[in-house]
């Protein structure tokens, strides 16, 4: 089945437009301001290698462009993660939930309340979970691995697990 080619309807939503701009800007500025030159030997728009591990454990490596969101990448590179990004990056669902290594997670831009609100509804929430639509690719992410949470077989089990957290 044909996937969406582009996830740009987000410009129709005020809230997310503001979001996209602020996050995007910060990331463009970042290599020059906050990070060591060795880590950011790149100009804006540079290529970054990313690895995705899908629900069934298979690994796909893609070359992404700085400034794209991880949701953009999943859609544009046809990573075939069914149901990913249902609200098209407007912070209205949690279907682009991704799990990061702790060392990577700690370097990500801080999370806004609205993202955490949605993430709280995600399946298999972990301490290093983020929404893919809110994570913008930066040069320092080169070589990073992100995991798609596993599909949940039985929701009651999930609910119990959640309650025990």
């Amino acid at each position, binding site marked *: 089945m044909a996937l969406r080619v582009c996830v740009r309807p987000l410009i129709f939503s005020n809230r997310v437009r503001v979001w996209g701009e602020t996050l995007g800007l910060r990331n463009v500025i970042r290599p020059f301001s906050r990070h060591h030159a060795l880590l950011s030997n790149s100009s804006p728009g540079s290529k970054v290698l990313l690895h995705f591990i899908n629900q069934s454990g298979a690994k796909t490596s893609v070359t992404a462009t700085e400034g794209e969101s991880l949701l953009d990448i999943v859609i544009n590179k046809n990573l075939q993660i069914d149901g990913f990004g249902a609200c098209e990056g407007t912070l209205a669902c949690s279907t682009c939930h991704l799990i990061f290594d702790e060392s990577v997670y700690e370097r990500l831009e801080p999370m806004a309340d*609205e993202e955490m609100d949605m993430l709280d509804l995600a399946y298999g929430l972990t301490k290093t979970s983020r929404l893919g639509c809110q994570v913008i690719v930066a040069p320092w992410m080169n070589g990073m691995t992100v995991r798609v949470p596993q599909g949940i077989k039985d929701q009651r089990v999930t609910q119990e697990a959640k309650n025990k957290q």
Partner: protein
Amino acid sequence: MRNIKRSFLAMHNLLQASRCPRCPCVLSSSAQRLFSTCASSPKVCIVGGGPAGFYTAQHLLRARSDVVVDIYERLPVPFGLVRFGVAPDHPEVKNVINTFTQTAQHERCSFYGNVSVGTDVGVEELKKAYHAVVLSYGAEGNRPMGVPGENLAGVFSARDFVGWYNGLPSNKELCPDLSCDTAVVLGQGNVALDVARILLSPLDFLKKTDITQQALESLRASRVRRVLIVGRRGPLQIACTIKEVREMINLPETKADMLPGDFEGIAEALKDLPRPRKRLTELMLKTVKVDEGRQKANKQWGFRFLRSALEVLPDADGKKVTGIRLAVNTLEGSGEEARALPTGQTQDLECGLLISSIGYKSLPIDPSVPFDSRTSTVPNEMGRVSHTGGLYCSGWVKRGPTGVIATTMNDSFETARVLLKDVDSGTLDVSVNKAGAQEITGLLKSRGVRPVSFSEWEKINSEEMRRGEALGKPREKVLDVREMLEVAWSSS
């Protein structure tokens, strides 16, 4: 005879036109619909064109390159509660329609609107025409309050109220009287908060949404200034999610009217809570503090905890609601499982509008389908309907009316996976050819039922967007089924 020959030639041409790489038979959708002879293509029928139906279809189509999926929907318009349930001020959630539209336009998928399964065509007939039938028809009933006065004027189910402002044809004549000062919403789930938010939102904001024009006019004249949202348990058991509470807090010129006493001891319980519950509770606690000092507001909303409906109080004529008598509860146990027990005390709240938002419930569709009236769901194991071969279910009819859209998505994918697993294992026999839609559309025709195709829905869609544009809204919904059909079948 000549006609037969001509149609045979046409079929022959179609056969030549496209061949499936995986099997020697034709997979072009048009040819497939004519022939339906491809023994290796499983034909699946989905009952209900809401999110559960579309997500089930999406996964089936994506996972196998030969499965054919037909979606039957009672209304002429697709998308179920995404159209009629999701609040008009949540347009982002409705983005899922883009993906559903792609699914419907898939060459192996067809949409048949205006077909009521159980009335126009039976489930047994569908089972005969298809290898598998997936029930995804949702929860069209309400859990009743079960108290005296429930049927007084001014008392509505949230389903009807939501259906009214969202343009559900069966609710277009609801005409709620909004001339009172206080509305009470019974229930504290997200639907309850949607209703409260719509009642208190500034008109300037709502008028840019796809809320129906008639609801907008009623809300313009509304004198409701205070909405109390009543739950039988405490703040730690509240059913809504944090986004909806945040939206209430952020309503302009509206302040939260909470009872600080309700939150005694809650701060101490925070540390042991899972993150979602903890953040939600922290936000409510913050609201109690902040809004104590917030003066410039002419509207109010508030939660009322540990209260259950006992009786709807009528006016002197015994016709219209003037209030509700509530039982004061206490909690037995703690956490998510805590139970509300009546203390024997009661409390009356005055209100001119009472909206009961204590849950939806699925209804049985056909005597041949098992139904658990206790849980109001179709008994199933991971979507496989118990003791019934070839029958599956997804969405609310499978697991009950709870969860967000991602919940329904995951659960529908699960049903699709289980169904395909049954195909692979041979539990679901697809070796015998089935006629699918060809057989059903024939039956429908003989019964005088004309389905609405997806491209016919797109005519309704265009018309609604055109009407919306004239009003500065994304869409103005057609409220009448007959009018929908006229637009769908118009020649233009």
